[in-house]
């Protein structure tokens, strides 16, 4: 009997290699743990420097304005994520079965080489009352639409900006599926639909999960998209938090809102992550 020692065992790294993790550790402390501690500290600070729960009280009182805003921001992000998923999954599926997928993916992410702000700003020119879209409509005799500065415009902006983050991880996990599994399924008599439901879909779930978190997280915290495409009328919780820091200088309230948002996001991610069980863990983030 010959049994070779595994080269790597999870959780044990040769002593000499441990120091390699020190930069990462320092980085995490400096840019993840410390800022979190600062947010936590600020949230419980009153203007004179003492301990106070006022900021949290304000979030939960004020006629529920802020709670409502929190929930409606979450809902807007969920909506955008779902639409991204509905559009993104078929797209990723088509791409994964296409021979020249790499060219198509290049075309697909080409706009992302341009600055995010600029791309979003250009929608102002497209959706405006006298924008490109309405000019086209009037050219073919259709009535104009006014969706700029409304909720649909913000959702559109989210989908436009975040769709690639949904497609790429799903494409990745679809691509990793061993074709022989699909062949085997066919050999065993499963129809194409059944193969998709029983083989392809379950194996691509890790990619779907990554896609959801990569779209949902930036969507729920963004303040740029609503301020550009919502014209200050569809403010999300991110806008209120931003203004607490940059305009109104109420760091305690901004920190308290951030903390509550973090807790809600954490709960949301926990709820979605039930699919992310151990056996499904490959695929994952791109």
């Amino acid at each position, binding site marked *: 009997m010959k049994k070779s020692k595994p080269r790597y065992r999870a959780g044990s790294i040769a002593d000499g290699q441990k120091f390699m993790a020190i930069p990462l550790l320092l980085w995490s402390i400096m840019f993840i743990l410390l800022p979190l501690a600062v947010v936590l500290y600020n949230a419980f600070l009153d203007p004179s420097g003492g301990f106070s729960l006022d900021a949290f009280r304000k979030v939960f009182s*004020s006629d529920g304005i802020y709670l409502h805003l929190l929930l409606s921001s979450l809902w807007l992000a969920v909506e955008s994520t779902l639409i991204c998923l509905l559009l993104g999954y078929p797209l990723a599926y088509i791409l994964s079965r296409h021979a020249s997928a790499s060219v198509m993916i290049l075309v697909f992410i080409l706009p992302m080489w341009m600055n995010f702000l600029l791309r979003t700003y250009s929608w102002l020119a497209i959706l*405006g009352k006298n924008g490109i879209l309405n000019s086209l409509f009037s050219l073919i005799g259709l009535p104009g639409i006014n969706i*700029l500065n409304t909720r649909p415009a913000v959702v559109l902006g989210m989908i436009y900006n975040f769709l690639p983050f949904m497609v790429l991880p799903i494409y990745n996990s679809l691509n990793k599926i061993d074709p022989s599994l699909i062949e085997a399924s066919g050999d065993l008599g499963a129809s194409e639909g059944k193969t998709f439901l029983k083989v392809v879909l379950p194996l691509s779930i890790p990619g779907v999960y990554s896609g959801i978190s990569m779209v949902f997280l930036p969507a729920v915290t963004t303040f740029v998209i609503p301020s550009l495409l919502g014209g200050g*009328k569809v403010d999300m919780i991110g806008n209120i938090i931003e203004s607490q820091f940059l305009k109104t200088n109420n760091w305690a309230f901004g920190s308290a809102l951030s903390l509550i948002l973090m807790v809600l996001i954490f709960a949301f991610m926990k709820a979605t992550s039930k699919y992310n069980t151990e056996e499904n863990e490959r695929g994952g983030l791109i």
Partner: protein
Amino acid sequence: MKHSLRKILSLCLVLALAASLFTGCAGGGNSKREKRELSVFNWGDYLDMSVLDQFEKETGIHIVYSVYETNEEMYLKLSSGGSNYDVLFPSEYMIERLIKENRLAKLDFSRIPNYGLLSDVFKGMAYDPNNEYAVPYTWGTLGILYNDQMVDEVPTWETLWNEKYKGEIIMSDSVRDAFTPALKMLGYSCNEKDPAHLNEAKELLLQQAPLVYGYYVDEARDQMAMENAALAVVFSGDALEAAGLNEHMAYVVPEYSNLWVDSMVVPASAEHKDEAMEFINFMCRTDIVLKNMLELGYSTPSQDALKYLDPEQTDAAALSKLLDCTEEYAQEVLDEELLTNEILFPDESVYANCEIYLDLGEANAIYDALWTEIKASIR
């Protein structure tokens, strides 16, 4: 061999990277006496950059230039004490706040002789009544920019609440500029501090919300030029730019509005106060004032500079000599007849009953809370 070469190369890179961490420290030690430096902290796009080169050439003082977007951002950076600034360009209410908090140094006016070239209208204002801290740099008004094809009346603040213009009104997304129209309509000051009065203004702004096309600051200009809206609350500088983009733009300053003045000040913590005085004096020199004004399109408080724009008092030759430019360019400038531009240089009667913003102190928090509430309630 190849391997060691790579090692040496990477070592060099690491050293270069490490060294770059310390470059910011230069000038902090002994070299300070040898090389004169000045740190200018200004709004973005708020001077003709060639003027900085000219200052460096004329005086040998090296300028470290950085920019901010809002008074509040400037205040945060100044008060957090991370960096040292020598000259700032805050607005009136921020100057008042900085003076109250002892953050400004008194200026040495004996070293700013060009101060005499500035109009008295902008001196001794409420935020600096004894003319000790601030030298005015630019000024303008808050008013209503409108499209004369879409609006057939001269708008007043009330027009911004007229159902007729539903979905065509752009309001300011900046707290004080949004409250000013409401407060003025109610007959209060734009420096109102009474919570009950502010609540009335809040109700008014909430009533207006369904009529509003969007809340903008910088985008208002482009949105108006693209004719996406009919009316917008903007500052005169934006109005001027919009007028350059679209011929149907008109601008009016309602009877009780806001007059703003941005001034140059020196923080108490400044390390180069002598150089700062020199810089402020330079910035008040007529040729520099004109260069900045032609670049920015904001009105200048310099009386002397206006003479060079008045075709009756000057000609292209004199102007080109002053600005060190071609006569063709000077003639172009004169042909623009800037002095007769009502947006840039309104009649004194227009701004006579305008109010300047003062520091709200404790009441700032009330404005902010009400504005946050308004913005959170709109849907």
